[in-house]
């Protein structure tokens, strides 16, 4: 049973295309996140949703749009992909409120823009 699952695992696409990454968690958590990990392994938060409501929106280009149809799902849509978007994108989830048990991460989606 995968707690946080992301699809696809790999995504290779051309510049200018639009793509989506899907994330689902079966842990009953209220909060979900998108993180971006660059080539130097630096992890940076992009978005956070709590029970379908956007609560964190870091300085991310408008081309990135998260969508949460319900509290178990958080998708990431990226328009007009650029070379610099190449990275590994991680979805994570946690209990709402103060973090006391840590985040549970998905296995990541490696996006390569060519």
């Amino acid at each position, binding site marked *: 049973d995968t707690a946080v699952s992301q699809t696809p695992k790999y995504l290779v696409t051309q510049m200018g295309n639009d793509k989506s990454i899907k994330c689902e968690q079966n842990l009953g958590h209220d909060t979900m996140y998108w993180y971006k990990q660059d080539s130097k392994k*630096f992890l*940076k938060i992009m978005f956070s949703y709590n029970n379908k409501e956007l609560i964190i929106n870091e300085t991310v280009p408008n081309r990135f749009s998260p969508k949460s149809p319900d509290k178990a799902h958080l998708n990431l849509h990226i328009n007009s992909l650029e070379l610099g978007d190449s990275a590994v994108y991680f979805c994570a989830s946690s209990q709402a409120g103060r973090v006391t048990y840590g985040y549970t991460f998905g296995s990541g989606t490696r996006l390569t823009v060519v």
Partner: protein
Amino acid sequence: SQQGEEDPQALSIQEGENATMNCSYKTSINNLQWYRQNSGRGLVHLILIRSNEREKHSGRLRVTLDTSKKSSSLLITASRAADTASYFCATYGEGGSEKLVFGKGTKLTVNP
């Protein structure tokens, strides 16, 4: 913005030795967490230490926290080849900011 800074950036040891990784951070925290990332995989939560705690143990892991120095250390005792991974510290701030901020990580290699 980045909060934690791990030290060293890379560490190579022999199986059976202990591995110590350090993390420094800049602002007040609610808690500090350590994560492991195996190559090509997601992050796995290892241990969480609250700001009012000084030391915590979990199996072969020992974490210390010194809030006066804004630093933490992760000790892995009797290391195994399977411990080879990148280790990240992450801080959860005070003030209701609902986000975990990660450091750059320490790449640990345990040689058999």
